[in-house]
């Protein structure tokens, strides 16, 4: 029997190839296992990082923030009207709203907010302010501005239009009765309103006119005031005047610090 060296060599090569093939398969399995391990590690790391990123952020409805900003603008209008009614410049409203708008633009916690406004200018309002401190027993201190609030966020853009009207009104009515010669008892009813709703006063100061001079009314005039707690005040005091009528001036500061005045003429009742 002769061995064919080629045939021998071929068998050896086939065994070698099979051996090499099975070796390759094992290596590929190791590579696959490594790939699994890397993928699991990467996933775990990604989930951890994702958890860290969401910590501290929140997704409250945009309407909540709009409501909060509406309140802030309202406070800004109240502050401006309080200042103007105390003798400040009427242009202060626009100045303060500009400053608020600038500060709001710099806040980027909830996205980008842009607040634009227009103060009311018409027959009665000047630079958004109306002070009517008349002689008919009615006094009005009012501020009015229109706002446009734009919110830019990754998720959505939103535009909200709204108006802020802050008005303090006082009505004074009354009469006097003569008690002795030129001594007269004046009885007044004073009503206070904030935006048309009954409101409380922080303080009320009264004056009466005697010989062209406004005289403050104090305890020497037997001054008494009854607070009914619903925005109605009953006031009584004694004045000494030769006149047949009593000119009265009421100066009121409401709880927001807004001043309003009303003058009226009291006749004998």
């Amino acid at each position, binding site marked *: 029997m002769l061995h064919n060296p080629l045939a021998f060599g071929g068998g050896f090569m086939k065994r070698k190839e*099979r051996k090499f*093939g*099975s070796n*390759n*398969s094992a290596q*590929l*399995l190791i590579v*696959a*296992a490594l*790939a*699994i391990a890397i*993928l*699991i590690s990467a*996933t*775990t790391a990604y*989930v951890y990082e*994702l*958890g860290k990123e*969401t*910590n*501290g*952020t*929140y*997704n*409250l409805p945009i309407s*909540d*923030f709009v*409501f*909060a*900003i509406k*309140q*802030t*603008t309202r*406070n*800004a209008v*109240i*502050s*401006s009207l*309080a*200042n103007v009614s*105390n003798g*400040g410049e009427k242009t*202060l409203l626009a100045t*303060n709203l500009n*400053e*608020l708008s600038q*500060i*709001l633009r710099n*806040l980027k*916690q*909830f996205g980008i907010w842009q607040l634009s406004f227009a103060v009311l200018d018409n027959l009665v309002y000047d630079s958004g302010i109306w002070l009517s401190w008349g002689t008919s027993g009615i006094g009005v201190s009012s501020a009015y501005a229109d706002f446009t609030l734009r919110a830019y966020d990754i998720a959505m853009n939103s535009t909200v239009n709204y108006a802020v009207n802050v008005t303090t009104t006082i009505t004074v009515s009354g009469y006097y009765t003569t008690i002795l010669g030129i001594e007269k008892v004046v009885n007044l009813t004073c009503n206070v309103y904030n935006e048309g709703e009954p409101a409380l006063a922080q303080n009320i100061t009264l004056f009466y006119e005697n010989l062209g001079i406004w005289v403050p009314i104090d305890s020497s005039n037997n001054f008494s005031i009854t607070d009914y707690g619903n925005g109605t005040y009953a006031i009584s005091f004694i004045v000494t005047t030769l006149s047949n009528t009593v000119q009265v001036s009421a100066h009121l500061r409401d709880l*927001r*610090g807004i001043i309003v005045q009303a003058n009226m003429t009291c006749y004998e009742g």
Partner: protein
Amino acid sequence: MRSQNKGQIRIIEAFLAVLIIFSSFAVSANLTTTQNTTKRDDLSYTGLQALMKLDSDGSLGKYIDEGNWTALRDALNLILPAGTSFNLTVYNSQMQQVNTAVISNGALNNQEIAFVEYLCVSQGLVFRCYIIHLHLAVAS
């Protein structure tokens, strides 16, 4: 050839296993994140409502104007639900800290800390704008 096919099938099986593991990780992580965010949102909403309530009558701005930090802390303690820890910081419009005392009712130990930023304008005669940072957590 058959052994090579076997190897390929093993690799495919391994990748299928990876896919299953990956999807389970993704689903579970997403669920956890949603729950945590909801908790934080509730707390943020509570904090925002508390600040708005204080600001509705101008009390918030008044406390800050007067530097009455104790009254501000007490008011927040009253308004916020029991078991809520908070830490409040007041900044002016130049982002300089205004409060000279710590306005807090305890340490925020919980991992779930909610944050609220609020813009407050005081109703006083002088226009003052404050930026309020309120951190909240459920006391552990």
